[in-house]
């Protein structure tokens, strides 16, 4: 069975380590915060100027002056820090964030990523995505393996305008966990009950399959 969005988030959450500073993008990445393992303390960074983002507020604690990068109202955990946007991106650009999780429309076997623009559609902007992918040391892309029409999103070359070049090293999809190196997707794990053949059939880019591909453990 392919994973649902929450299960993708849950598997990514297993990559968190105690003390990590983490930036979660909008969409599936945001869900990772719901599955932080017991005993693991992480600081969530919000690019609009907050390190130590907490849960959504209760109705009486809503504060218009405290939002996340998705413009949702949030809270701060004890030990949180606030700063301006230049400082926030200094933190990102300077490589101080341990793990970045973001969504994508396409990823290539060379680690290129496209996630901000579709030609002939209204362009909303790249926000902080280009800064994140260009600088982060440890990025996991969270996305569906195929688009709604069934076309592979893991490609030899991205078709859409790039967000970043040769910057993605790991991809978590509803079917598989893959590493990108030496110009190919390397299959690390498969979703429970998903066959290697299905993953191969839905991966347009070069796929390297080791002899034994373990199932993800939850």
């Amino acid at each position, binding site marked *: 069975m392919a994973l649902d969005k929450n299960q993708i988030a849950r598997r990514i959450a297993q990559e968190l380590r105690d003390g990590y500073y983490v930036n979660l993008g909008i969409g599936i990445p945001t869900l990772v915060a719901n599955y932080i393992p017991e005993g693991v303390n992480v600081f969530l960074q*919000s*690019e*609009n*100027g*907050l390190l130590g983002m907490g*849960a*959504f*507020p*209760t*109705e009486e604690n*809503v*504060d*218009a*002056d*405290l*939002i*996340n990068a*998705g*413009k*949702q*109202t*949030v809270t701060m955990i004890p030990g949180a820090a*606030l*700063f*301006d*946007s*230049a400082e*926030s*991106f*200094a933190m*990102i*650009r300077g490589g101080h964030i341990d793990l970045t999780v973001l969504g994508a429309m396409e990823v290539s076997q060379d680690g*290129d990523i496209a996630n901000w623009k579709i030609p002939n559609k*209204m*362009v*909303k*902007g*790249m*926000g*902080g*995505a*280009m*800064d994140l992918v*260009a*600088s982060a040391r440890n990025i996991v892309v969270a996305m569906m393996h195929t688009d709604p029409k069934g076309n592979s999103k893991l490609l030899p070359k991205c078709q859409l*305008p*790039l*967000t*970043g*070049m*040769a910057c993605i090293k790991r991809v978590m999809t509803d079917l598989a966990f893959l590493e990108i190196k030496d110009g190919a997707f390397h299959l690390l794990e498969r979703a429970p009950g998903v066959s290697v053949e299905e993953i191969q059939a839905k991966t347009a880019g070069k796929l390297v399959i080791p002899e034994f591909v373990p199932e993800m453990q939850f």
Partner: protein
Amino acid sequence: MNKIVANATEAVRDIQDNATIMLGGFGLCGIPENSITALVAKGVKGLTCISNNAGVEDFGIGLMLKQRQVKKMISSYVGENAEFERQLLSGELEVDLIPQGTLAERIRATGAGIPAFFTPAGYGTEVANGKEVREFNGKMYLLEHAFQSDFAIVKAWKADRYGNLMFKGTARNFNAMMAKAGKITIAEVEEIVEVGTLDPNHIHVAGVYVHRLFQGQNYEKRIEQRTVSK
């Protein structure tokens, strides 16, 4: 020394057609609501606005777009705004989209006297078109330049009459850098307190950067995504 002006109308009095202005805020958080209202009433046109976002259809910079006061937006994300989209597609509005960290650093550089800097964001993408590329330590970087901005309009939480500013929560965002980047910086604040009341250890922007100051009124502080837990 007194930087205080009576109100928003007085603060924006000399902003002329075709001016370049920076406007603080992230989404609708920390936007200079009173000054935007005054600019709409004043009816200045042909503005180039440097702002991370472009407001929503009926609030923030969206109000200026609706009156067709904006010639060009320089932003990182312009979100959902049907009127914005219409003007963009019809060619009435020019938009320059910039990676958010590059935008923030260009604003910071403007105030800090740094004419240009190298950043990796956008290398290998269309953002790199026409820009100088240089390799440092095996990694590729783009040359990005500071802005020239006639005015910077920011919103702060508290200030004293010398223009020392404090922000609250994530409303600091682009306001803190923009305050340092205007040839003339206008700060609207929720509360002006007596000199000496603000703890110097806690001042986010020193008064040296601020030229005009007023206490705003009737802050709506609209929330784009009110998200609550039980």
